[in-house]
């Protein structure tokens, strides 16, 4: 059997490792448009910050492809998929036949319709090449404007803060990190970033750029030297939707990663998953989920399907030394505790913990994540919003958790 994986990042690695758990024989070919050995995308900000380097940011060791008997066709772009003929077309010419295909092609930066942007030079911040281009453009005198106060924009700001004179972030949203934080939490993190010199214009979209000046919705004119567009991402799904793959914002799959097309699986940023905390299908775009989706697809292809049926949002993020961790949904009944260094908000529904936002102290926070994931009724545990502990569980349940089924 020949398995072709399009993409060379988290979901692709998950698929390779999932396949090779059971199947050492099938041919695996990885095709990716980037030339680089598999690397951790979220580390590009740490690279610019000097907290990692090109060797250490490799997502798997140098011998990964060799050890997993994978042929890597790097620097190749797939332009079309023929599901009937089981064949891919490469941009460089040539066809690659497959028996099973894993589409893990990820996403690309979304460029918002800002007037003047089509003729103004700008940078994006998603790939290693993006980071290297941005780094070489920066100088200690640079005034940087970042469009987008989400994860990518803020991590970019942190990464380059020591390499430029000034960073301003503008976003149409009224608060930073709107996808993971509530209003109060966002205000705290914003104040922390401001202490590190970041300036914000929120609820204030960049309407046009001209020369080296951006004009905001409220009329403010901002001069800049370097413009970074960090307004989110778009999934690279077109070659699949072009041949009729069912899709919402992302490709739809079952819990084994199988799309609506025969022998074609999808995983990672390109695919939706069913969020168990709210029952909705969406692109979660988190690294752990991408790996688990990819691995599930790999296991299914190898003939040992183990459905991935526990997808949920979990985000952990440090920003200028301040850590935050969030999981599940952020709506409904909630409790908040706040001290100088610590913000903790928990969301409840039907007697269960359904989500949380922690800023500051993340000690043992995974115990809360487990309560959300396993949907444990809180009348069976002693839930403590200050101190997550396994002591919260009833002794029998605790013994089973800690020592396993046979305890």
């Amino acid at each position: 059997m020949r398995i072709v994986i399009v993409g060379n990042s988290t979901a692709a690695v998950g698929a390779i490792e999932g396949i090779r758990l059971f199947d050492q024989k099938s041919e695996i070919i990885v095709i990716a448009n980037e030339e680089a050995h598999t690397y951790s995308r979220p580390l590009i900000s740490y690279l610019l910050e000097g907290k990692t380097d090109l060797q250490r940011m490799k997502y798997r060791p140098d011998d990964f492809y060799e050890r997993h008997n994978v042929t890597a066709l790097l620097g190749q772009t797939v332009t079309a998929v023929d599901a009937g003929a089981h064949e891919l077309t490469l941009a460089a010419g040539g066809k690659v036949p497959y028996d099973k295909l894993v589409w893990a092609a990820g996403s690309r930066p979304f460029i918002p319709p800002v007037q003047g942007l089509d003729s103004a030079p700008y940078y994006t911040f998603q790939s290693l090449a993006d980071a290297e281009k941005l780094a070489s453009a920066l100088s200690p005198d640079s005034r940087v404007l970042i469009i987008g106060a989400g994860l990518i924009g803020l991590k970019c700001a942190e990464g380059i803060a020591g390499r430029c004179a000034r960073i301003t972030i503008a976003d149409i949203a009224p608060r930073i990190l709107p996808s993971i934080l509530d209003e109060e939490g966002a205000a705290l993190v914003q104040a922390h970033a401001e202490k590190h010199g970041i300036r914000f214009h929120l609820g204030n979209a960049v309407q046009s750029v001209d020369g080296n000046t951006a004009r905001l919705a409220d009329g403010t004119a901002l001069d800049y030297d370097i413009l970074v567009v960090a307004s989110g991402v778009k999934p690279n799904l077109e070659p699949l939707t072009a041949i009729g793959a069912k899709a919402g914002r992302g490709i739809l799959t079952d819990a084994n990663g199988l799309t609506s097309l025969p022998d074609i699986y999808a995983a990672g940023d390109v695919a939706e998953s069913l969020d168990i905390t709210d029952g909705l299908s969406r692109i979660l775009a988190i690294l752990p989920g991408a790996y688990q989706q990819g691995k599930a697809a790999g296991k299914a292809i190898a003939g040992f399907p183990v459905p991935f049926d526990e997808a949920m949002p979990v985000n952990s993020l440090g920003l200028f030394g301040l850590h935050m961790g969030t999981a599940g949904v952020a709506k409904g009944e909630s409790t908040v505790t706040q001290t100088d260094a610590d913000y903790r908000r928990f969301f409840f529904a039907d007697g269960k913990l359904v989500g949380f936002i922690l800023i500051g102290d993340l000690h043992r926070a995974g115990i809360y994540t487990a309560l959300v994931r396993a949907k444990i009724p809180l009348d069976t545990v002693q839930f403590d919003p200050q101190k997550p502990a396994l002591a919260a569980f009833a002794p029998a349940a605790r013994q089973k958790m800690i020592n396993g089924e046979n305890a």
Partner: protein
Amino acid sequence: MKRITVHEEWCLGCHLCEYYCAFANSGGDDMADALRGVAIRPRIAVEDAENDVHFAVSCRHCATPRCAEGCITGALSVVDGVIRLDADKCVGCYTCILLCPYGCITPSEGKPIQKCELCLNNSAGAPLCVQKCPNRAIVLEEGAVPCAL
């Protein structure tokens, strides 16, 4: 594969395992010297519950480890059934802390995080908490794979 199991009915709550863990990972060869005046940061933690119940928790080395699967850098990986940390690759994003259902990965001093590696990463060579538990509440045995929550 051998893994640590803990028996809360035998745990005295003495917390000695925490001190031996800190010593094993201190790099020192004298316990008193290594721990004198130090706020210890052990990789095993004793929880003291109601009704005089105590139990120690350290990495379960899960068969399908959420921490390693979710690690954004590849710093956490499974080597011969043991979840090992390559601290050099870790950037301290704490994703693993948010994913571990046992609360067994913690921030560290000098490097971003720490976790139990069954003393394979230090000179003890085999879990010192197991060797030194006075009531054999912490044992290394062939065990069932824990069911992570």
